[in-house]
């Protein structure tokens, strides 16, 4: 009986180590207290475009931010309806990316791939729609990109890579002109959903 004991403990130890390894890897994304979403949540309310300060020593919202990229961020919360993001994209380098709170980049569009310089993006949750009843496609739908998000809250991040140091103020001005806010149905037939939700994004449905 004793003969097998050390072997048994080794097997038990390895199985336990494997289980602990798997649990640790799977649990970590939801436990990481300093993930990007937590850092950005400290900056301001949801459903508002916030321009991040240019990365410089000791003044970085996230680690390893590019010093030659200007960023604007909108933490979207779809609890009160879809969120609309609008931007005039000045050059082909701009990148608009949507993330889950865990940092999964589920949607991205590059300036060079956009048909027109004005981007109009509506983020909806799985159970939300921006389509109008009885119409195949509303008149405005050609200009609008509707992204069905896999999450009810997340992050929209606009990157403006600089083509030179002299372009920083230009990029900052362009980022300041972007907007993010609750989407209000344009059709007058359908009464619009509750307005003034910008200040209380955490309000229950």
């Amino acid at each position, binding site marked *: *009986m*004793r*003969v097998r*004991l050390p072997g048994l*403990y080794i097997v*038990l*130890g*390895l*199985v*336990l*180590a*494997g*289980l*602990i*390894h798997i*649990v*640790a*890897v*799977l649990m*970590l*994304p*939801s436990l*990481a207290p*300093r*993930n*990007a979403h937590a850092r950005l949540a400290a900056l301001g309310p949801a459903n508002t475009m916030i321009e991040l300060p240019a990365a*410089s*020593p*000791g003044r*970085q919202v*996230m*680690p*390893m*931010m*590019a*010093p*030659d*990229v200007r960023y604007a961020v909108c933490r979207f919360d779809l609890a009160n309806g879809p969120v609309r993001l609008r931007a005039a994209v000045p050059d*082909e*380098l701009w*990148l608009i*990316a949507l*993330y*889950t709170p*865990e*940092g*999964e*980049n*589920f949607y*991205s569009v*590059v300036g*060079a791939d956009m048909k027109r310089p004005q981007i109009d993006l509506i983020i909806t949750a799985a159970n939300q729609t921006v389509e109008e009843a009885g119409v195949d496609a509303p008149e405005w739908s050609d200009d609008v990109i509707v992204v069905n998000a*896999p999450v009810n809250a997340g*992050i929209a*991040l606009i*990157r403006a*890579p*600089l*083509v*030179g140091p002299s372009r920083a103020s230009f990029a900052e001005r362009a980022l300041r002109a972007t907007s993010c806010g609750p989407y209000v149905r344009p059709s007058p037939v359908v009464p619009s959903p509750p307005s003034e939700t910008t200040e209380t994004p955490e309000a229950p449905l």
Partner: protein
Amino acid sequence: MDPDRLTALPTDSQLMFASSGAVPWREEDATHSMRSLAYFIGTFVVALMLGIGSAWYMIERGSPLTTTKVGPWNGWVTEGNPQADPYTKAHVARSGRLPLTSTVARYFTASTDSAGRSLVSSCEYSIEGGPLNARWWSLAVYDTYGGLIDNPSARYSFNSEEMLRHADGSYRVNLSRQARPENWLPSGAADQRLVLMLRVYSPRETDAAGIGLVPAERLPKIERKSCE
């Protein structure tokens, strides 16, 4: 445990050899359970260390499953991708970064020179690379926490638009504490380890999964010139 075992012990040489540490007395039951408990706790502690340690290593440093390693450069293949493996997801969450998915951008980090020695601010390095087939790229230097390094010329990176290049599109960046000609990337007054990050936005070559490809020979070589 077993009264027969006492008599069996002297004759069964194999068993005697294996259980040489056993105490064949009547108090054996108590001793045995104490020992079992100690063994069990020991096993659990070792398992905890092994499990957490291996998880930490594979999340922090990566493994052949999740990263491509080219010389000193390390890139997470499915970084930012919603279909990424759990290690990559954990790595991203822990890093506090928001990387673009690897079909849009590739990120490569280096914390050693091409010879495998840690990058430190007290040494001077020559970083030589070839042109990259991408819409925009940038080479930046950070401390080990991912913070930019304070320097009087406020120079933290060189990107594809501002890098001074040779006629063939290749370039050399001088990473050093003291000012250098060409592309000088200051490594700061503080004595510390350094991390280089090369970010490549919209690589024009991709694999079948759409993941951007950066040819290995185009990634810069990092050569240590001298140390203080």
